[in-house]
C-alpha cells in the first residue's frame, strides 16, 4: 500500500473550515480495508456457517440464529477494535498525524472505512435474512422483528464507532461494547413482547403498523443522529486528540 502523495494532494491541516482532502481520505480508507480484509473474510465464513445450520432443526435454528447475530455484532466490534483502537495502541495514529492529514480527513476516512466495511455486509445479511424468511417455510411474521433487530445491531455499531472515536482508552471502548451487547438481549426480550410483533411472529402476516414501524424509524433516526453528531464533533476538532 503506497502512501506517497503528490503536492496537489497535500492538505492544509490548519484550515478551520470543514474541507476534505479526498485523495488522502481515499488512501486512508483503502489502508483500513486492506488491513481488515482477513477479518471480514473470517466473519463472512462464520456468517455462511451460521446460516447453513439454521435449517437443520429446531434447536439448530436457535443456535444458528444466535451465532448469526453474534457474527454480525462481532464483525462490527472486531473491525472497530482493529481500525481505531489498535491504531492508537500500535502508534499508527502518531504516524498518520505526521502525514498531511487533517482531523477532518481522518474522521471522514474512519467513518467511511468502518461504515463501508460494516454497512455492506450488514445490508447484504439483512436482505438475505429477509429473503430467506420470505422464501422458505419460516413464518413471514418474523420479517419485521428481523429488520428491527438488524437496525438495532447497526445502531449499536454506530454508537460503538462514536465511542471509539471519542474515548481515548481501550478499556473505555470495551466497556461501551460490552454494555451495548448486554443491552441487546433485553432489547430482544422487550421487542418480541411488543404486541404487534408477538401476535404475528408465527403467522404468515407481515405487520408493520403501530409500534414496529415506530421502533424502526426511531432506530434509523438514532443512527443518523449518532453518526452526524459524532462526525461533526470530530471533523471540527483542531487536533487529533
Amino acid at each position: 500500500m503506497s502512501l506517497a502523495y503528490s503536492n496537489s494532494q497535500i492538505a492544509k491541516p490548519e484550515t478551520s473550515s470543514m474541507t476534505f482532502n479526498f485523495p488522502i481520505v481515499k488512501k486512508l480508507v483503502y489502508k483500513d480495508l486492506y488491513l481488515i480484509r482477513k477479518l471480514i473474510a473470517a466473519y463472512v465464513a462464520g456468517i455462511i456457517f451460521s446460516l447453513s445450520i439454521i435449517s437443520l432443526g429446531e434447536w439448530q435454528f436457535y443456535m444458528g440464529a444466535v451465532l448469526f447475530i453474534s457474527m454480525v455484532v462481532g464483525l462490527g466490534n472486531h473491525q472497530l477494535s482493529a481500525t481505531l483502537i489498535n491504531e492508537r495502541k500500535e502508534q499508527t495514529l502518531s504516524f498518520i498525524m505526521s502525514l498531511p492529514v487533517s482531523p477532518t480527513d481522518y474522521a471522514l476516512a474512519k467513518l467511511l472505512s468502518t461504515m463501508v466495511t460494516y454497512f455492506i455486509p450488514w445490508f447484504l445479511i439483512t436482505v438475505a435474512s429477509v429473503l430467506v424468511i420470505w422464501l422458505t417455510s419460516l413464518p413471514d411474521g418474523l420479517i419485521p422483528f428481523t429488520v428491527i433487530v438488524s437496525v438495532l445491531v447497526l445502531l449499536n455499531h454506530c454508537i460503538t464507532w462514536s465511542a471509539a472515536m471519542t474515548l481515548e482508552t481501550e478499556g473505555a471502548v470495551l466497556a461501551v461494547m460490552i454494555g451495548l451487547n448486554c443491552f441487546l438481549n433485553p432489547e430482544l426480550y422487550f421487542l418480541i413482547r411488543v404486541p404487534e410483533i408477538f401476535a404475528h411472529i408465527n403467522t404468515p402476516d407481515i405487520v408493520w403498523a403501530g409500534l414496529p414501524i415506530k421502533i424502526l424509524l426511531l432506530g434509523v433516526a438514532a443512527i443518523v443522529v449518532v453518526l452526524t453528531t459524532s462526525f461533526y464533533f470530530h471533523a471540527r476538532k483542531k487536533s487529533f486528540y
Partner: protein
Amino acid sequence: MNSTDNARLHVAQPDISTLGTRLYFMDNLRALAMMAGVVFHASLAHSVMLQGIWPSANTERSAIVDMLAWFPHIFRMPVFFLIAGFFASLLVQKRGIGCLLKNRALRILLPLVIFLPLCMWAVIASLMNAAVTVEHKSAVLGMVAYGMAHPGLPPPPPSTMHLWFLYNLVFFYLLTWTFYFFDGSRIRQFFMQLKPFRFVAIFSLLLMPALLSQSAPFPAPDSFLPQLWSFGFFGLFFMVGYWVYQEPGFIEKFIPHWKILLICSLLLYAVFYWLIPKEVSLTAVPLALWKKIIITACEALIAVSMTLVCLALGKTYLNLRNRLMRILSDSSYWIYVIHVPLLFTIQYQLMDKNWNLITKLGVALAMTFAIGLVSYFVLVRWTPIGWMLNGKRKRNEV
C-alpha cells in the same frame, strides 16, 4: 490486490503452459456432466423409485431405469463441482481473487437471478396446465389438481430447483475468497500427495458425515437456506478441484488405476442399489444404522472413485479440440439452465400417449436437446445472453 504476490496466495505455481491455453478436457468433461444431468432428469419420469414425487412421472416405468440413472447421479455433480473449483483456481492464478468474484458474479450470480424466476414460472405454469389437461396424472399432478380444486391449501416452499448448483456455487466462491487469505498449503500438500487409494479412502471418509445426514440417494440441496451438508459434500469436491489445479500431475496419478476404480465403483453400486429403499418419498424412510453406514460408505466411495475415473478418462480421451465438443461445451450451460421446464412440458404431453418407455424417453430427450441447441444458436450464442453465460466470442471462432 493483484495475483503477483504469490507468497501471500500460499499456492504452488502451476505449469505455466496451461495458463494461456484452453483446458479442453475439463471443458468437455463439464459439458458431459451437465448433459448427463439432462438425461438423468428425463429418465426420472420413468423411475419406479421417484414415481410418488416426480411431477412428470409416467405410467411407463422400469426398475432398470432406476438402476442405470442413479449410478451417474452419485458422481455427475461431484465432477461438476470439482471442475468448478479447478477453474476458480485457474482464474485466481491468472487474474486474481477480485477478478474471480467479478467474473463469477456475471457468469453465475446474474444467470441465477435472471433465470430462476423464469424457470420457476415456466415449471409452475406447465405443471398447472398439465394438472388440468393430462388424463393419466402422476401423484404430484394429482395433488396439484386437488390443490387447484381446493384453494387455500398452503403452497409448497419455493426452491432453487435445478439451479441449486448456481446458488451453491455463489457460496463456494464467497468461501474461496474467505479462505484465500489463510494458508492452507500444508493441508493441501498432505492431502494431494497421498497415494491414490489412500486418497480415495480418506476423501470418502471426509464426505461421510455430510452424506450420513441425508437420505440415500442424496437429494439436491435446493433450499434457499444454505445446506450444511452441501458444504461438506459438494463443497469438498470444489475445494479438491481448487487444489487439483495447483498440483500438476494429480490427475495423472489416477490414470493407471481407472479400471480398478471403475470396477470397485460398479460393485459398490450393486451393494448400494440393493440396500437403498425402492421408493423415495418426501419424508425419508428411517434405516437401520448399519444399513445407513454401508449405504453412505458406498455412496462416498463411488462419488470419489468415479469422479477420479472421469478425470482420468477425460484427461486421456477428452483432451480434444473439435467442433462438436466445442459446441457441446458452449451450449451445455444454456441447455442445462432451460432443460427442466422444457423437459417437463414435453413429458406432460407424452403422459397420455400409448408409447413404450424407450420411445417416450427418446422423444423427450431428442426434443429437449434439439430445442436447447436451436435456441442456443438463435437466442444465445451471439447475444448478450451468450456473453453472460460463456463470455464474448469472436465471429471467426471455431
